[in-house]
């Protein structure tokens, strides 16, 4: 499990504060792109009546995802403990193949880069990439 340095945690927290006003849009964009660019991910949402970008289920779920990421930022000092409920959800109920966490993480980074090109510096990029990798690991904790 990679450990984030103090500096990296600070970078994640401060960048997240900067973008916190746009969390819903970020979540919506990232999820839309995941479903469009990596259509195999649609298999997890066959119960939705509408998977198109802009639709109500996609917007709502994008928001849910970013609320989870916000929770992770707040528990950045101990992600497995902080995300234990979400991990159980993903392990026992949703059973999302962990390779998809990487795909969604990449889409989140693309959207952050697109919406905040000046603030998404290389240092912020590596800190966020490490952070999301750690979140994915914490979410897969209970898988087996």
């Amino acid at each position, binding site marked *: 499990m990679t450990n984030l340095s103090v500096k990296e945690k600070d970078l994640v927290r401060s960048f997240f504060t900067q973008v916190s006003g746009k969390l819903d849009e970020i979540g919506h964009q990232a999820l839309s792109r995941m479903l*469009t*660019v990596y259509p195999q991910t649609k298999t997890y949402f066959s119960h939705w009546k509408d998977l198109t970008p802009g639709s109500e289920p996609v917007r709502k779920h994008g928001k849910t995802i970013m609320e989870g990421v916000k929770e992770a930022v707040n528990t950045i000092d101990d992600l497995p403990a902080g995300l234990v409920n979400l991990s159980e959800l993903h392990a026992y109920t949703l059973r999302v193949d962990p390779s998809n966490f990487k795909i969604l993480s990449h889409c989140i*980074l693309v959207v952050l*880069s*697109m919406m905040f*090109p000046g603030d998404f510096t*290389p240092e912020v*990029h590596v800190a966020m990439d490490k952070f999301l990798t750690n979140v994915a690991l914490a979410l897969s904790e209970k898988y087996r």
Partner: protein
Amino acid sequence: MVVWTDAERAAITGVFKKLDYDFVGLNALGRCLIVYPWTRRYFATFGNLFNADSIMGNAKVAAHGKVVLTGLETAMKNMDNIKNSFAPLSALHSEKLHVDPDNFGLLADCITIVVAAQMGSAFTADVQAAWQKFLAVVVSALGRQYH
């Protein structure tokens, strides 16, 4: 045989029209070396790559970023035959440079992130999908001649 729709071709050529090769080349390769530091193993002759500032200020990184982008342009110009037109480049990366093919995907992700920054909202989900497909074909072609 890769099949491209007209919309995909238009999206990809559209991205290239907007690309600042110097900016994207330096930033994509630079970010790859910063975010995935193990990739520095392939650039021992580039001098100082010790931290983000020295990487982004390194003239050899900038020059090589442009080489990578020019290679991508070749793929764009040979979109219906990327596998064969990239065979010599694939052999080069395997036999001479000894690059682990997993690294191609890492650089591709960085290129996408920098293109998104440059294009902003013009980098729609559909454009990203076409671009991702294009990069996936390039990455696959580069790994083709490994044995």
